[in-house]
């Protein structure tokens, strides 16, 4: 059961990460479009930048769990060579547990943030005024999958 959940989560996170990468490429294309139409066609550009910022925030949070899965969130390992093996094991266990608690809290907080924006129908203050629950939803979802990933890594470390 554990490996089934872990496998499904890994696949979902990988898919979310590749999609996030494509979203970054899409943002670059939107910016090229914006510069071209503004400079050559003198068209007004009012939604492009805001959309790109939103897309890049979404890509950041949606790739957070995959980044954690590959242990690519940078850490300081200066203590590794200074401490005895047993202490290092305990330190890493504690570090994973504290990371889990922090991300769990932010995920919970993010769902509240999303719910508030959804209920109040919040929009951004720009002329384009997109619904804010959309990016907030992905922040909450991304932090939740990151929390799940950390929980699985904690369980794996405990089993090992």
């Amino acid at each position, binding site marked *: 059961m554990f490996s089934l959940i872990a496998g499904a989560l890994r696949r979902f996170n990988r898919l979310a*990460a*590749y999609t*996030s*990468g*494509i979203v*970054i*490429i899409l*943002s*670059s*294309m*939107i*910016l*090229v479009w*914006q*510069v071209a139409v503004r*400079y050559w066609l003198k068209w007004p550009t009012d939604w492009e*930048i805001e959309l*790109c*910022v*939103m897309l*890049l*925030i979404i*890509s*950041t949070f949606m*790739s*957070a769990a*995959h*980044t*954690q899965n*590959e242990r*690519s*969130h*940078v*850490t*300081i*390992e*200066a*203590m*590794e060579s200074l401490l005895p093996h047993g202490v290092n094991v305990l*330190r*890493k266990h*504690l*570090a994973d547990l*504290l*990371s889990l*608690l*922090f*991300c769990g*809290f*932010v995920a919970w*907080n*993010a769902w*509240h*943030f999303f719910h508030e924006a959804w209920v109040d129908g919040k929009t951004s203050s720009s002329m384009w005024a997109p619904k804010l629950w959309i*990016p*907030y939803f992905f*922040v*909450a979802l991304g*932090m939740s999958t990151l929390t799940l990933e950390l929980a699985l890594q904690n369980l794996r470390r405990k089993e090992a």
Partner: protein
Amino acid sequence: MDMLTLSLLFAAATFIALFSGMPIAFAVGGVAVVFMVAFMPLSSLALVTETIYAELDNFTLLTIPLFVLMGAAIGKSRAGEDLYASLNRWLYRIPGGLGVANTLACSVFAAMCGSSPATCSAIGSSGIPQMRARGYSEGLATGLIAAGGTLGILIPPSLTLILYGLAAEQSIGKLFMAGVGPGLLLTVLFALYVMWKYTKEKNALKAAAASGGDSAHALLQDEHYSWAERLESLPRFAPFLAVIAIVMIALYGGWATPSEVAGIGAFFSLLMVMTIYKCYRWADLKVILNGTVKESCMIMMIIGMSFLYTWVMSNLSITQSAAEWLVTLPLGKWGFFLAVCALLLVLGFFLPPVAIILMVTPIVLPALKAHGIDLIWFGVIMTILMEMGLIHPPVGLNIFVINGIAPDIPLKKIMWGVMPFIGLMTAAVLLLCLLPEIAMWLPNHYHGS
């Protein structure tokens, strides 16, 4: 609790969290939340996600994932190899020509990607084996690439300068221009050192060969390229020159802002890699996408959480008290400057540039202003100090990138190999103190006109 105790407690908690092995983003975020619970109204906890989101919702931060994409795309292709191989054909006549070609390749590559490890990896993966094959000592070959890679965060576009610009509220365009002169200065210093070291190693081998030693050493063998071979390499420069030209024209021609330029650079780099280097298969794209999202997410998470951290510091008045204390220190302008440089250097031994810039800049900024230190010039100095951290043990990210490229070279040799380059960077900082115009001429001249 008095302010001094609170500040010390905050600093101690930060160091414990960072050295616990927690990812830096979660460590600084975690410290912020703990201090919110302990010292701020509980209602403030509801603002955690809002604060992180509000800080990331920034037009300037767009540049980061896009420049990372640019670096990942170029790094995936054999663009780095092409670049230095072409340069070598034109520079082989000067002593240490291959080393100089690698240094220049690092500079050109840095002008297309704002990342130090990406530059290091792209040029080093083919440059180090070639230099070793031609008889360069392992320390020189690895030290040169590790140090050359750091040019990636100084020569524009630079992620470090963007972050500094955000934290210090300075013009990114001006910072980019200020990075050009010092970037070229470091390139020249590195190239001159390689020429001197190469000549020294070659003379020592010649002397040994004359007294019956190994006369077949690779360093003693001459290489030659015909004009036809040299001219044949010219088209290989074309894609690089095209991308650099597009980026420079868009930025300095007033077509686009730095954030938009990041989009343009990323798009055309990806296009170049997909069309010229044929990296259009899903297997190739997967590597580019994976590399981009991992690095970009890691940096953006640190940025988001660091903003939460500095927001809590500011709400608890720690930033203001520390800044006031720094202003009243009887050190004078240069004494204060030296103290900040020492602090940045020490922090650079353990922390990545992104964390140092976002955590330290708000604290030292008022004192820098009070002492009349130019913030654009200081941004360049700070970046060079961050560069030193990238090649200095124990963390020195580039050392480990090199170790990954050439795992058979002992880490100790790589570390000794980078030491002369740390000396050269120190010399560059001194030169910039004596002649600030090296950095400031271009932004002053450009904005003046």
